[in-house]
């Protein structure tokens, strides 16, 4: 038997290369393909990362809330690990959305911040992300932590449609969906796709870490485990994780 395996998942290198290529293509397109906007000039190019980050902030929240709901239904911590991974990346994307948006606002509206409905709902989304991560960080017991975090995620997801529809439902100064040059539109889509691929890769990697962390914590807690090592196994590398450990009843 060889239960403590140290294998690199098949196709892992290919996925890494594809994600890196997607982001690199997006950057090159932003720099060399996207035309410069007539009135805003170079500052308009902020929109290619701002929109991509905003989309990832919202998508991260949806993934977080969906996996949290599945956790509540099944009480399986694997879903909570997906939820945590999505929350961390979503928080990062949401923070970058606010930062890049603020820089864009300064360049176009001559103000760093205004209480526009879209900005306000986006800020609330970021605050819920912060609350979610703070709750997680303050609790030790895995299931209690997962339950409370899931409730917060499911409640907070109500803000997602408000963020999306804020520019249509309420009066504000944030652009609704401005008409763009086809080349600009293409670059924007490429940027969104590239960053999405990269974040998806990070999501999978982070979840693999959390899974292994959970397994090691279980072993440390003195659970009944069996595991074996092969003599020919090499030192673990980031690509060889997670290991497969089997619980014996």
């Amino acid at each position: 038997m060889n239960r403590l395996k140290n294998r690199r998942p098949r196709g892992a290198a290919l996925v890494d290369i594809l994600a890196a290529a997607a982001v690199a293509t997006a950057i090159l397109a932003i720099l060399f393909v996207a035309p410069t906007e007539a009135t805003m000039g170079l500052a308009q190019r902020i929109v290619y990362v701002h929109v991509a980050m905003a989309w990832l902030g919202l998508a991260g929240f949806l993934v977080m809330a969906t996996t949290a709901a599945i956790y509540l239904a099944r009480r399986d911590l694997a879903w909570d690990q997906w939820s945590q991974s999505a929350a961390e990346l979503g928080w990062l994307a949401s923070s970058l959305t606010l930062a890049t948006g603020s820089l864009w606002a300064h360049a176009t509206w001559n103000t760093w911040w205004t209480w526009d409905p879209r900005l306000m709902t986006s800020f609330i989304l970021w605050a819920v992300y912060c609350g979610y991560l703070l709750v997680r960080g303050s609790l030790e017991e895995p299931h209690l932590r997962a339950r409370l975090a899931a409730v917060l995620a499911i409640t907070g997801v109500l803000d997602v449609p408000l963020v999306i529809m804020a520019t249509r439902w309420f009066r504000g100064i944030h652009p609704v969906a401005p008409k763009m040059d086809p080349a600009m539109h293409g670059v924007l889509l490429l940027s969104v796709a590239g960053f999405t691929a990269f974040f998806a890769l990070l999501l999978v990697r982070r979840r693999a870490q959390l899974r292994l962390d959970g397994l090691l914590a279980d072993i440390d807690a003195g659970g009944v485990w069996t595991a074996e090592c092969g003599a020919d196994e090499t030192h673990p590398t980031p690509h060889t994780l997670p290991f497969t450990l089997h619980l014996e009843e």
Partner: protein
Amino acid sequence: MFSLITAYLLVWTGLLLYVVRLGAQQRRLAQSVDALRRQLQRPEAAAPAPHHSVFSRKGALT
């Protein structure tokens, strides 16, 4: 121009910090697994272990 450069710097710094943190976490986990593997390979690991051992309840590896 200032806004554009700052925005892209922020995005890349944010992503870089996250990836660095992920790498540090990965190294920590690899060390833990390595320590566990060494413990498993020791002959005495098969003997009944003291209560604080990670295999204390079972006391033996199969």
